[in-house]
């Protein structure tokens, strides 16, 4: 309750907790062994600053989720390592909140219990966890729905609960794997705007995976474009659009230029991948 107020006050126009630096150091990820071996991520190195909003853009199957899962600690890199604030990532933890593309709320817990789950796991008392849950549910506009079960909510609402749940642990990094991929265009736009608002308040580092160029340019400070499989970062583009962002920026020359550039890189890459496949 108090923590969140502190963040809000500090966060004008944009907070940073000073935490949430991510270093990806020569990370390569291979699934399977021997003849079955399949390289999902090619040796990749990059640094993400505390509080930065980074979008990872790339074609389907290029290894975006795999890279994100390595930061989350779900998959171990076959080579290299991931460090968050200097500490090597070895397993999932509450310092790295995760929002999934699929529905991932616990269906047997109410919305409220789902959001209170993280604080409870962190050893907070029932009442304390409850008030945190209410705060975050309020922030995503769903306090009224606390006593519902996830299945009773629409897809967009469930995803908002997912965001509230991830934030309720005050993570230094928020990892999002195509979180709005399944939503319709209007809901998606609304979700993007409210995500930016929340991020401005919290100053968490966000790594956001998408294959939608517009989404990436609209949201990000930095867009990382990945090659076709096996994935590696082939472009690191800074998006200089002012904050707070609004949808009418889509008409600005900077926006159009950034978008154009992304599309060109992607087109060149798919042409290259196609030629390689046919060679």
């Amino acid at each position, binding site marked *: 309750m108090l923590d969140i107020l502190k963040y809000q006050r500090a966060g004008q126009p944009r907070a940073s907790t000073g935490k949430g630096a991510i270093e990806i150091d020569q990370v390569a990820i291979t699934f399977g062994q021997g003849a079955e071996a399949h390289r999902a991520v090619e040796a990749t190195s990059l640094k993400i600053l505390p509080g930065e909003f980074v979008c990872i853009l790339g074609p389907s199957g290029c290894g975006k989720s795999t890279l994100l899962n390595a930061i*989350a*600690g*779900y998959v171990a890199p076959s080579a290299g390592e991931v460090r968050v604030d200097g500490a090597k990532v070895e*397993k*999932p*933890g*509450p310092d*790295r*909140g*995760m929002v*999934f593309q*699929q529905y*991932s*709320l*616990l*269906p*047997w*817990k109410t919305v409220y219990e789902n959001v209170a*789950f*993280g604080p409870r*796991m*962190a050893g907070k008392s029932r009442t304390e966890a409850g008030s945190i849950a209410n705060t975050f549910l309020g922030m995503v506009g769903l306090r009224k729905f606390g006593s519902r*079960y996830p*299945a*009773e909510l629409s897809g967009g609402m469930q995803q908002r609960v997912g965001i509230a*749940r*991830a934030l309720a*642990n005050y993570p230094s990094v928020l990892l999002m794997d195509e979180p709005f991929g399944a939503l319709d265009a209007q809901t998606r736009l609304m979700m993007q705007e409210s995500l930016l608002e929340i991020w401005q308040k919290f100053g968490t580092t966000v790594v956001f995976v998408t294959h939608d160029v517009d989404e990436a340019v609209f949201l990000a400070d930095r867009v990382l474009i990945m090659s076709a499989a096996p994935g590696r970062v082939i472009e690191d583009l800074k998006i200089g659009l002012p904050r707070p962002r609004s949808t009418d920026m889509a008409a600005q020359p900077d926006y159009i230029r950034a978008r154009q550039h992304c599309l060109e890189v992607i087109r060149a890459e798919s042409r290259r991948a196609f030629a390689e496949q046919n060679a």
Partner: protein
Amino acid sequence: MQANTVLSGPAAAPDPDPAEMHDAGPPPAPVPRRRRILPKGWAGQAGLMALSLLAGLAIWQMGSSQGWNLYVNFANIPSPGQVGTSMLHNLGASEFYVHLGVSIQRVLVSFALAVIVGVPVGLLMARSRVFRAMAMPYIEILRPIPAVAWIPLAILMWPTEESSIVFITFLGAVFPIVLNTLHGARQTPEVLVRAALSLGASRLDVFRHVILPAALPSVSAGLAVGMGVAWFSLLAGEIISGQYGIGYFTWDAYSMVRTPDIVLGMLAIGLLGTASTAAVNALTAPLLKWQKRTR
């Protein structure tokens, strides 16, 4: 339903008979309504059940009173009346309740043990490859052995007759519980486990908050099956050994040629089996209430 909406105009009111609807000839051809065999709802169902039972009783009565011998011999089968008399007699005697009580107690103890052992073993097998590899051969070898086949060994193994009967009953209940729990727990979507881990859950928390609830629908099905098999195994045990229990009562009635008591014992067993399965379902239902809303 549909026909009613189509014909809601004044010409068709009130609720026309299907035959008349054609005569009235409104433009959209009405869907002819199928005649209901049953009056709607609960009363109709119950009535039909009672009717079916009565018919069964009548056939039974005829078969035994006329001594039908159509390869299957009804001549020695007691009539419903005789069974009724036996029932009144036994329900008035305290010994019958002792038999019932002993059987119920045995089932409860064995079933409770089977749940305490079966659910954790199933969960562990689902989440640990090592444990699964170690436990699976035992399950695969022991599971197909019917309760009756265990009896000689059980009597040799266990110090008291009581403990050997409980053991046999336990064996009957535990396998369906383990296998259903295992199956249910393996269905847990990995994304839920990951979500919990990222929220700071420990391995034990994951079991408690994710894997167990995910397995619960399947676990509760396993409990219901396990309860049925428990009765089955218990009776096998009671027939061979023991001096109390409804299985003993039934078998003793056979040895002493008290045929109406045989049927009474059988009916009691059937009733107890049904009631205990219903009780298991009723007890697990509140744990599954989140599921109803999903559908």
